[in-house]
C-alpha cells in the first residue's frame, strides 16, 4: 500500500505521542480494599499470592531467623500464600525503596517509618495501599496516638512501627571505675565528659556520617530542654524553629564537639562505627534509641540507658515510632498482603516482637512471663507509660516532620558539627522550611 509522505507524518506523530504517554512514569492509582477482593482470590475462596516482604537488615543477619520461623508459621496456616523475606540496610532503604515502588518492582509488604516524612511522603506519592477499611474489617487494636502517625489525609495507610525511645546509653562499669555518678543534669554530663576525656576515652560516640542521626541529637537535647509540651508546640507550628531554645539545643552539641567530647570529625563516623566505639569500650556514652537493645552484642560491661539530661534535671526520653508494615499500592496480591499484615498485628506476633525482637509493638501485648534482659525491662516500663499517656516524653522530630524539614535539620546539625553553620543559621534554615 502506497502512503504519501504527508500522510506518514501524522502517523509518526501519533506513535510518538503514544510512546511519550507511556513514559510519563505516573505510578498506578492506589488500590482500595474493594479491589483486593476482586484481585487475589483464586476463584475457590482461598487467598493466594507470592509476597515479597522487605525489612530493615539487623546488625546480625542471624537475627532474621526467628522472623523467618514466624513467616513459616504464617505460611503453614495460609497454604495459598508464600512470603519471601528480604532485608536491606536502613540507608539503602532510604535511597532505593521509593524508586523501587515507583517502578512497580518494589516489595508487596515492607517495613517503613511512621510519620509525614516516611509513610506520609510515600502516601503523597501514591505508593501505599489504603488500609482504612482493613482496620475496620480486621479490628486491629493499634493505639490511637500511634495510628495517627500513619494517617494521612484521613486515610490510614499503614501499621505504625514499634514504640521506641531515644536517649544516652552509657558504660556503667566505666563510670563506676572513674567514680562518676549517672549524670542527672546537663552540667553533670559535661563534668562526666571532661573526666572521661582526661582518660583518653571518647566521652560521647556521636555518629553523623549518614546525616539522619542529627535529628535524634537535636530531638533529645531539645526535648529535655523544652519538655513534651514544648516539643508539641514546635511540631504544631505554635513555636518557631529559630527560637532561643532550639538554638541552645543545637549549641549544646556544637560546644560538646568543640570541647572534644565527641569523636574527631563526627560527621565522618557512621552508625556502625559509632556503635562499635561504644561496644568496644573506646567510648563511654552512645546517643541512640531503644531499638539498639536488641543489637547490643556480648559486652563485658553493664549498659545503662538514661534520657539526655536537662539543665535543671535528668531530662526526659524522646519517644517515637519505628518502622511498621505498609502494603505497596502496586501489589498484585492485595488480599494476601492484607492477610499477612493481619498476622503481623496479631497478639502472637506481638509477643514474638517483645520476646525475640525486643521491641514494643504499637498495640497491647500480654508481656506476663516474658524472659527479657533487665535493660529491655526498663525500656518496656518506659514505653508502657508512653503508650498509656503517663509520664512526660519528648518527640522524635524526624518522624513528625516533612522530608524537606528533615533535610534542613540534618544539614543544620552536620553544618554546626563541621563549622559550616552557626547554631543560629541552622535554626533559621529549619524555620524557613514551609510547614507543608
Amino acid at each position, binding site marked *: 500500500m502506497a502512503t504519501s509522505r504527508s500522510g506518514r507524518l501524522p502517523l509518526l506523530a501519533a506513535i510518538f505521542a503514544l510512546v511519550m504517554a507511556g513514559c510519563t512514569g505516573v505510578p498506578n492509582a492506589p488500590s482500595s480494599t474493594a479491589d483486593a477482593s476482586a484481585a487475589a482470590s483464586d476463584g475457590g475462596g482461598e487467598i493466594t499470592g507470592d509476597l515479597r516482604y522487605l525489612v530493615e537488615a539487623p546488625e546480625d543477619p542471624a537475627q532474621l531467623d526467628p522472623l523467618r520461623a514466624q513467616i513459616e508459621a504464617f505460611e503453614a496456616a495460609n497454604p495459598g500464600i508464600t512470603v519471601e523475606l528480604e532485608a536491606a540496610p536502613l540507608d539503602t532503604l532510604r535511597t532505593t525503596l521509593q524508586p523501587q515502588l515507583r517502578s512497580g518492582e518494589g516489595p508487596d509488604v515492607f517495613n517503613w517509618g511512621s510519620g509525614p516524612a516516611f509513610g506520609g511522603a510515600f502516601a503523597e506519592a501514591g505508593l501505599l495501599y489504603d488500609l482504612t477499611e482493613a482496620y475496620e474489617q480486621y479490628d486491629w487494636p493499634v493505639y490511637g496516638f500511634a495510628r495517627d502517625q500513619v494517617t494521612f489525609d484521613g486515610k490510614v495507610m499503614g501499621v505504625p512501627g514499634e514504640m521506641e525511645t531515644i536517649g544516652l546509653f552509657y558504660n556503667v562499669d566505666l563510670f563506676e571505675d572513674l567514680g562518676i555518678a549517672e549524670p542527672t543534669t546537663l552540667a553533670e554530663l559535661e563534668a562526666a565528659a571532661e573526666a572521661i576525656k582526661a582518660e583518653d576515652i571518647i566521652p560521647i560516640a556521636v555518629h553523623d556520617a549518614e546525616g539522619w542521626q542529627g535529628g535524634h541529637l537535636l530531638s533529645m537535647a531539645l526535648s529535655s530542654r523544652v519538655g513534651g509540651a514544648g516539643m508539641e508546640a514546635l511540631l504544631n507550628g505554635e513555636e518557631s524553629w529559630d527560637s532561643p531554645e532550639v538554638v541552645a539545643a543545637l549549641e549544646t552539641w556544637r560546644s560538646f564537639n568543640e570541647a572534644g567530647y565527641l569523636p574527631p570529625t*563526627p560527621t565522618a563516623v557512621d552508625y556502625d562505627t559509632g556503635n562499635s566505639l561504644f561496644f568496644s569500650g573506646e567510648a563511654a556514652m552512645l546517643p541512640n534509641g531503644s531499638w539498639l537493645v536488641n543489637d547490643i552484642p556480648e559486652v563485658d560491661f553493664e549498659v545503662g540507658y538514661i534520657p539526655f539530661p536537662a539543665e535543671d534535671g535528668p531530662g526526659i526520653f524522646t519517644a517515637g515510632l519505628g518502622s511498621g508494615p505498609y502494603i505497596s499500592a502496586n501489589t498484585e496480591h492485595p488480599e494476601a498482603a492484607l492477610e499477612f499484615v493481619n498476622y503481623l498485628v496479631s497478639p502472637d506476633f506481638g509477643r514474638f516482637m517483645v520476646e525475640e525482637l525486643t521491641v514494643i509493638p504499637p498495640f497491647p501485648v500480654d508481656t506476663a512471663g516474658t524472659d527479657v534482659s533487665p535493660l529491655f525491662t526498663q525500656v518496656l516500663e518506659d514505653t508502657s507509660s508512653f503508650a498509656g499517656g503517663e509520664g512526660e516524653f519528648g518527640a522524635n522530630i524526624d518522624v513528625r516532620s516533612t522530608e524537606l524539614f528533615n533535610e534542613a535539620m540534618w*544539614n543544620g546539625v552536620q553544618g554546626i558539627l*563541621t563549622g559550616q553553620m552557626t547554631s543560629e543559621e541552622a535554626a533559621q534554615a529549619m524555620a524557613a522550611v514551609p510547614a507543608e
Partner: protein
Amino acid sequence: MAGSSEALPRVTRRAQSRLGIALVAPAAILVLLFFIVPLGNAIYFALVRFDGVNPNPPFVGLENFAQMLGDPVVWKALGNNAIWIVIGTAAPLLFGLVIALLLWNVRHGSLWYRVAFFIPYILPGVAIGVVWGWIYDPIRGWLNEALRLVGLGSVATGWLGNPDTALYAVIATAVWASIGFSVVIFLAALQSVDADLIDAATIDGAGPVQRTRHIVLPQIMPVFLMVATVTLIGGFSVFDIIFVMTGGGPAGATEVIGTYAYSNAFQFNRISYGTALALLITVLAIPFTIGLNRLQRRLSLYRMGA
C-alpha cells in the same frame, strides 16, 4: 556527482532511497526510542509541576528553570561539578598518559600491568565507594593509620566528613577508578606512533618531555581528545560514587547537580524540578562535547594521530 545521480532511472533512484531508509531505520528507531523520546519526556516534565501522583500535572512553563537560577544549592552544586570536571578530567588524562608511556616499552609482564590498572575501571562504582569509604574511615581507616605510621598523624582527619576534604577524597577515588581506562586506550594509541620520528628526535637531542610533547602527543591527539571527552561528560553527570560515599554531605559540601536532582525527584517528590536539574546537566555538557568532537574530527582530517 549530482549529474550522475540525476542520470539514474527513476526506478533505480527509488530503490536506492528504499535501501537507504532500510539501512538507516534501525539506528533511527534506536535514537528515537532511547534518545528523542526520553529527551522529549524530560522536557515535558520540566515544563509541568509533577509530584509523582497527579496524572495531569499543571503546566508551569519555565517556572522550574527560574527557580533553579535562584536556588543557592544549585550554584554550590555547579561549583562542585566544575571542580570535579577540572580535576576529574585532568588527573586521569595526566596519570593515564604517564603510566601508558611508562608501560609502552615494557616487554615482560605488560599484560599483567594492563589488567592491574584496568580492573578498578570495571568494578561497580558502588563497591568502589563502599571500600574507599572504609579506607577513609576516621577511626579504623587504613589511610589515617598509614599517616600515623609515617608520622603524619596531624594530617589525619575524617576525610569524608570534613567539608574541606570530602569532595577531593571522592574525586581521588573516582580518579583511581578511571585511570585504567585512560591507560589502556593510550597504550593502544601509542602502538601506532611512528618510532622513526622518535628515534630521529632522540638523535637530534630531544629529551623525554620534548619527545612526548612534540612527537608522541600530536600523534595520539584524537585519541587523547576522545578520552578527554568521555571523562569530561562523566564529570557533568557524576552521581553514583558521591551518592554512595557522602550522599552529598556533610551539609551539602559534596552536593553536585546529579545528587541534588535525585534528592529532589525521589526524596522530596519534586519530580519536575529534579528533571529540570537533570536537563541542566545535559545542556551544559552538550557544547563541551560538540567542541571536543569537532576538534577531534578536524585533527583526524589533518591526518594527525592514531
